[in-house]
């Protein structure tokens, strides 16, 4: 179960390759990208976020009968159009791959200790979120 917090730009194809499997007929990926603002600054409680994300992915894999599941979250500045998070799920069939990828990103957003600050026109503000 690959889970990583990284300050580098994320690569969709690298994350997708991690879930390839000869018994997987379907791979679904999700990318969350900065939109409408100049940039987003992400901060993480890295020492907790990474193992928490790994455990969360294992639970999603089991609940949705996936072959493999991987996720990476970027920290630091993420400019307009770039990805802050990438999730990839593989399964025998598309139904499970879609459901597994969706569950993983829903839980990452709601539970993993990561925060973002929005920068737009010189103004910065922490974005209100969800209490885990």
């Amino acid at each position, binding site marked *: 179960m690959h889970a990583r917090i990284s300050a580098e730009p994320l690569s969709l194809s690298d994350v997708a390759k991690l879930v390839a499997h000869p018994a997987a007929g379907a791979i679904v990926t999700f990318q969350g990208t900065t939109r409408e603002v100049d940039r987003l600054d*992400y901060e993480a409680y890295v020492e907790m976020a990474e193992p928490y994300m790994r455990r969360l992915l294992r639970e999603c894999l089991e609940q949705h009968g996936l072959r493999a599941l991987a996720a990476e979250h970027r920290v630091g500045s993420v400019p307009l159009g770039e990805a802050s998070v990438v999730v990839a799920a593989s399964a025998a069939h598309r139904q499970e791959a879609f459901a597994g990828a969706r569950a993983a990103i829903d839980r990452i957003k709601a539970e993993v200790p990561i925060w973002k600050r929005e920068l737009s026109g010189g103004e910065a503000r*922490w974005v209100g979120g969800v209490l885990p």
Partner: protein
Amino acid sequence: MKVNVRLFATLRERAGASSIDIELPERATVDDALDVLRERAELADALARLPVRVAVNREYVELGAALHADDELALITPVSGGC
């Protein structure tokens, strides 16, 4: 006993530090630690305004959980990762 408190985002900015040490009596709970933190001038406003979840040694815990010397306690305000 000493407990290390990790701060992030708004709380980190208010405190001007990413972690602070606090002194607690033996057998203190997470709730006791929060009472101590709410009395600190630099955190009082933000903690009155924002809900927090607490993690101890990198696991979410309930308010009644017991603390031990040198525990790492983290104040988790509403999270907004993802996109």
